[in-house]
């Protein structure tokens, strides 16, 4: 099907759907068990479990995604007018910098490249579904969107930054939830759960800031 990590997950979802459609009460969320807010810090002292193809793809996609968040945080440090936005940008930098280091160390340990071999590849000509998407499956903000943010000033900067960071966080959560449907690697589980929970909390904060702006 379309992109790498989803192909497996999709099968599972379809099966669940068929069962659930018959009125069974399915359990709530899947395998996310790590406590909220825990960061995946202690794992480096333990041996890293092998990474599956979807673990590798997750790290390869999430590293540039996090790097873009840091880029946006840097812009906020320069141009944000509200203290709340600046503080949030700091918080994001503090959370995501070690996560980038950690994911990079996984890929090194797994002997996988830290960048995807072909960042847009994989879909081939199978189904012709690559329609550009809104953000596509990389979840990254487009260059045009980054330019819009970089050129904005004043209250408009804060507002656009919050809107873009909400969208950016949403795609990080989507990627994390996808990998959580099939990963068995404890380190991946911990980090993906931390991203899901931590960024959902930040989204709520950003929605509130937007509404008061």
């Amino acid at each position, binding site marked *: *099907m*379309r*992109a790498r990590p*989803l192909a497996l*997950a*999709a099968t599972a*979802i*379809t099966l*669940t*759907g*068929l069962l*659930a*459609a*018959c*009125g*069974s*009460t*399915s*359990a*709530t969320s899947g395998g996310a068990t790590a406590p909220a807010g825990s960061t995946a810090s202690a794992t480096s002292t333990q041996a890293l479990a092998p990474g599956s193809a979807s673990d590798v793809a997750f790290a390869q996609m999430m590293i540039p995604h996090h790097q873009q968040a840091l880029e946006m945080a840097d812009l906020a440090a320069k141009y944000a007018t509200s203290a709340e936005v600046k503080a949030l940008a700091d918080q994001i930098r503090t959370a995501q910098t070690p996560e980038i280091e950690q994911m990079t160390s996984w890929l090194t340990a797994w002997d996988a490249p830290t960048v995807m071999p072909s960042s847009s590849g994989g*879909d081939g*000509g*199978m*189904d*012709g*579904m*690559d*329609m*550009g*998407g*809104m*953000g*596509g*499956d990389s*979840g990254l903000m487009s260059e*045009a*969107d980054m330019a*819009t*943010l970089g050129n*904005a000033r004043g209250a*408009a900067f804060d*507002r*656009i930054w*919050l*809107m*873009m960071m*909400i*969208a950016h966080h*949403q*795609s990080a959560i*989507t990627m994390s*939830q996808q990998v959580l449907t099939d990963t068995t690697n404890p380190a991946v589980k911990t980090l993906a759960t931390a991203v899901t929970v931590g960024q959902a909390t930040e*989204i*709520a904060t*950003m*929605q*509130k800031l*937007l*509404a008061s*702006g």
Partner: protein
Amino acid sequence: MGPVVTRRQVMLGVAGMGAVAGLSACARGGSALVGAPAVASSESARPTTGATRDLALRARAVKVDLGGTVVSTWAYGDTVPGTPFRASAGDRVRIAFRNDLPEETSVHWHGLAIRNDMDGVPGVTTPAVAAGATSAYDFVIPHAGTHWFHPHHGMQLDRGLYAPFIVEDPAEPGRYDAEWILVLDDWTDGVGRSPERIYSDLADAGNRTADGMGMGMGGGGMGGMDGGDVAYPMYLVNGRPTNDPQTLTAKPGARVRLRIINAAADTIFTVALGGHDLTITHSDGYAVSTVPTSALRLGMGERYDAVVTLGDGVFPFVAAPVGKTGLARALVRTGGGPVPAANARPAELGSFALTVDMLQGAEGTALEEREPDTTQDLALSGTMAPYRWTINGRTYDDTVPLTIRSGQAGRLRITNMSMMPHPIHLHGHTFQLGPAGGTGPRKDTVLVPSMGSVDVDLLADNPGQWMVHCHNAYHAEAGMMTRLDYLA
């Protein structure tokens, strides 16, 4: 949108309901569907104002002037869009409908969580209205908001058959001086190919490509857009192209409530008002946290209300089709000044567009906090070749419906496995984005991003059989629909 409706199901009509249900796994398990008495009892429990509003509504062939090009199309009444219908929450509405089209049709009241047998979905809720026949719709409106109506039959929505249905909230203070309804549409009828022809061309191109190992980009060179499958010759605001825009005349400083409805069949729009920010106040009829934005993105079937305080001059309200070439617009005039060029794109349009995931529900709009009794998945997928769009891997004629029981809390986990966004619409309910009792806004149509996912919670408080589908009319016709069936 209509699609409910494979030819076979139309022929079966209401009698077909049992047969369709009988094929589903659930019905095999012995669970019967909820019946007419539950629908009637739910209706009689709705609070009413005691007032009754009557509407004589006629679907007919008309000629409309699109900026100097006169085309024949189908419309409600004499105009595109049809005259807005207004009522208040709690009113009983009686609609005497006459079908003067050359083929059968139906009317679906999009966004109104009304009694199931008035929902206007042939083969599921309400019999189709034959050519030349009349039909009576009679229901109590449960809640306020910016809604609309359109056929739920084949590709008819992609003609001129649509009109606003505005439900006023008697308790809401009128904190604005004027109101402006803005209905967005993608237009081909009488200018380009007919909607039916576009659909069959998409299907044919898909089949040829699927047979021939081609590139998979169907649609006669029109695929490959992130917003939709079809390039339209015109885009309209309130039935008018860019060279003949509707003009709102007001005083500088006036506070105007915009009610924006995306009635397009295949087009997501980004809208902006030159020189102004829009302060978003409602989505799909429910109040949201008020957020100012330069640009706003609406999927097909979505509605947003916004408030704006007008400056002094002439300003274009523009709607840019996402991933397509073209523009729709209207004008605001509060003072002197030249009319902007027809293709003028105000800077606001280039800003980052607000989508619903940036909003919270306003206080008092959340569902009661509750863990779901049942959680069910909708996996969205599809291909251009063959031209086939599915939910949980199935087209509608082969669907396994979602099920729920009256009083249950339900969660739908919607996962988009395709590379284009899909506006998913649930009939008869306004779900909450995210968990019930959380901060998410209430919606009946949600644009699920490509490769993204959205969880929504709902309360099963309106018994019946309800369509759940993509509001891209071409995708729906190609199978991207299922139902939420109440079990007895």
